[in-house]
């Protein structure tokens, strides 16, 4: 599903050039659950941003479903993103001005799903995430665990083929964190490919494979048994 080859990304200031990704090559197959680990500054989030087409690479190739996307313009990237990728962030990134229902509805609005269909699908996914009773609340009225469930609901409502999760349990206690990991595992078992950046060995064990990065390069891959 994803094949990146010799991917490069630099951050430049006037005086210093930092290499975030150094000719990195990774393959992720459809239906896989991959965890990416490594110390701070090793390039995990940069990689995730490029995979999610939120950022451009400076060099190398990125094939998504056998299509070279490394140099897509913003419109094409936005288009590809909204139909194929769901995001889950450590800090949830819910829109404070919208209710739970409206937050989850948003991706469907942007993909042009008709209103009646939207209601059905949002309710379905809220039900699945067991957050239906909070549908009319605003994000700030929810606990962290509940907010992350809303964020996951929003990520999956468009039935994406790939979910990118950036430390999804980072802001949660262990019990809520486990719930979120269960949810992701469940999604993966139903066919969604998941790439997750994490610091937690515990969370990484939910994945099929752990890729460990250091200074923008792969240093080790562990296949989970």
């Amino acid at each position, binding site marked *: 599903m994803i094949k990146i080859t010799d991917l490069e990304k630099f951050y430049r200031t006037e005086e210093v050039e930092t290499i975030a990704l150094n000719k990195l090559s990774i393959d992720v197959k459809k239906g896989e659950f991959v965890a990416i680990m490594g110390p701070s500054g090793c390039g995990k989030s940069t990689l995730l941003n490029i995979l999610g087409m*939120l950022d451009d690479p400076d060099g190398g190739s990125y094939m998504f479903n056998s299509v070279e996307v490394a140099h897509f313009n913003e419109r094409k990237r936005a288009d590809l993103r909204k139909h194929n990728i769901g995001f889950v962030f450590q800090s949830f990134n819910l829109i404070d*001005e919208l209710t739970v229902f409206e937050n989850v509805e948003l991706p469907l609005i942007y993909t042009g799903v008709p209103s009646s269909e939207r209601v059905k699908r949002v309710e379905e996914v809220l039900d699945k995430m067991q957050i239906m009773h909070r549908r009319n609340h605003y994000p700030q009225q929810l606990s962290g665990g509940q907010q992350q469930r809303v964020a996951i609901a929003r990520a999956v409502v468009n039935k994406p083929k790939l979910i990118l999760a950036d430390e999804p349990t980072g802001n949660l206690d262990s019990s809520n964190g486990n719930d979120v990991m269960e949810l992701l595992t469940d999604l993966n078992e139903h066919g969604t490919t998941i790439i997750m950046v994490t610091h937690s060995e515990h969370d990484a064990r939910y994945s099929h494979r752990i890729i460990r990065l250091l200074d923008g390069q792969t240093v080790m891959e562990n296949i989970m048994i």
Partner: protein
Amino acid sequence: MFRNYILIAFRNIRRNWSYTFLNILGLTLGIASCLILFLVVRNELTFDNYKKADRIYRVTWNAIDFNSNISLAVAPKMRAEFPELQVSQVMYNREAMVKIHNQRFKEKDFVIADEYLPQIFDFQWISGDPKTALKEPNAIVLTESIAKKYYGNTDPMGQVINVENQFDAKVTGVIKDLPSNRSVPIQLLLSFETIRNQVKENLNNIYDIGGGFFTFMLLPENYPIKNVQARIPGFMHKNWNLNPKEVRFPLQPLKDVHFDQRYINNVVTPTSRDTYYALFGVALLIIITACINFVNLATAQAIKRAKEVGVRKVLGANRKQLIGQFLGETTVLVLISLVLGIVLASVFLSGSEVWFNTKLDPSQLTQPVVMAYIAGIAITVILIAGLYPAFVQSAFQPVDSLKDKGAQFVKGFTLRKGLVITQFAISQVLIVGTIIVANQMDFFENQDLGFNKDAIVSFNIPNQAKMDVLHQQLVNNPGVEQVTFSNGAPSYNNNASGFTAPDFGITKDDVTEVRFVDENYFDLFGLKVLAGQKVTARAQKDTIITVAVNETLIHKLGITDPAKAIGKHIIINGTNVTISGVVQDFQSESKHKLRRSCVLGYNKPRFFMADVKLRAGSITKTIDQINKSWSALFPDNLFEYKFLDDHIASFYIQEQKEYTAFKFFSCIAIIIGCLGLYGLIMFAAAQRTKEVGIRKVLGAPLISIIGMFSKEFVVLILIAFAVAAPLGYWVMNNWLNNYAYHISIGPGIFVVAIAVSFAIAAITIAYQTLKAARVNPVKSLRSE
């Protein structure tokens, strides 16, 4: 999707109510001002927009200067020699006394006109036949409101009105009230035939030019004016032997009457179109200021909303959709402001007569043109105020905005500075303009008049035979300090007459004002005698007539030393007179015009006006007493008086109107600018909370924190001033050049303008700055 935009717009409004409030208040004031100014300007620029206005001309007189009045002799001859034209003569009277069933009224705008006028000006007739209503003698046409005032719901047709104790006239028609923008305002319209006998002589004398005698003509359709113009010199020569090199009859298009400032003796003082373009410019500046606020506050807030934009982009929103969303939010705010602005404008317009001396009906707001203009304002504001912030906000890169790096991408800060400079510059130009107009108004009415005007009332003497009795009663009144009789106080424009001075080479008629004054005139008005003596009483049969003349006249004679003019002779209307005194020039007309020559002499039968200087303290009581004795002496007349300073102010009604408008709308522009500034400083204070905390922990005193916030604005104000000062100077200097006498623009005005700018900015930012500076540092650091 649209529902979502609107929804989030309303939630944002609720959430950021303080910004919303500043934005809506600014836009509401801006939109209301734009609307009002549009109506004021439209009212002025559409003066005399009669249906046939494009074909209507006024026949005027141009000998030494331009005179809108012309002899009654012209119209009948024109009618005979230019049969293709409709020609009408009009005699305008500022007021007249009418009596209905023994009830007397003083009415303004009393007009005498012939039967041809209704064919030229399309009045709206409620009753009566426009073709015949003014045909017969003793016929009078009333406006609707006058008819209502006299007769209520009774039919006014056929009722009899007594005019000036002279004629009984029958009501033969009622017309709708004229709009306020008419050069010849009309309340009552008496048929010319009624007074034909009285003006028999005027009809034959081309030089007999009365004040308010106008002649209008209507061209046939598609008939070039050149065809008439070409025949005018021949027409003048044939009928009156006039030499076209000395006299011309300029045909003035009706649409220019209100704007041609060469003619000052109009009923409504002509004004410059430029003034109204300038007012329209102020409207634009106001709306630009309001839009700048909007852009500033929106881009400042953009940093706060960067995360939302990032999330939306991650979820698949494309740029177009985001621009749509932000424009949607702007639309909601603009529409709210538009509704409030229209309400505010209509409230204001109902009081427009008090404010601007011009009646502007709020119902005009529902006219299609005005509605189109309102829609235009709305769309323009949405685009100007909304587009830029929408583009800026929608351009955030999701990765950066999610990391709260959005702020770095708001390059708007430099732009915001630019916009704030623009706002300050606009305010400063308006401040400079307002100060200059205020000084010029003061100069008009109070300075360099050449005579005293305080506590002096003028009223007329209807019957010269009772003059001595009146005089006795007035001087016996303890509230009266001085009394003088004349044909008018110095500010009352007087008879003009031809004069020659063969001894000094002036053999062809020049023009001089002639004033008939008694021996107390000079003392009461404080006229300054430069040489010789003031005017003294003289018996009617004296053969040597002595006069006082002003400086302008002796300069015409080529004399610079006033003493050398004493004993010299000039000829006025064929009478040889001797100069016995020279008086310093005084301002007898509006300061639009250069001062003219003036001759003052004693001529008791021509004293029509009394001027009384009142003692301070009991002015109302004294006027009451004068009223009683005057009314007892002249029982058939109504006592009406006017303070001299009010009369002088009346020269400048147009300027006063403009001044009020400029003052008012400049204030609005400045207030809107302050709202924006307040919003920005509020934002800056919030942004720099942490910095303030750290500085305070490190020992910064309160004053240095205040300085930190203020420094930036001081620089911006100075940059703005560098732009505003020369611009203000240039604009206002051009304006002042419209007047023959005007103030000069000194550096003091600019010092005041910049000081006011600093004061306004300081007051605006004081509260937020102090608030930010006084927060406990622990609190501000914790909030990070």
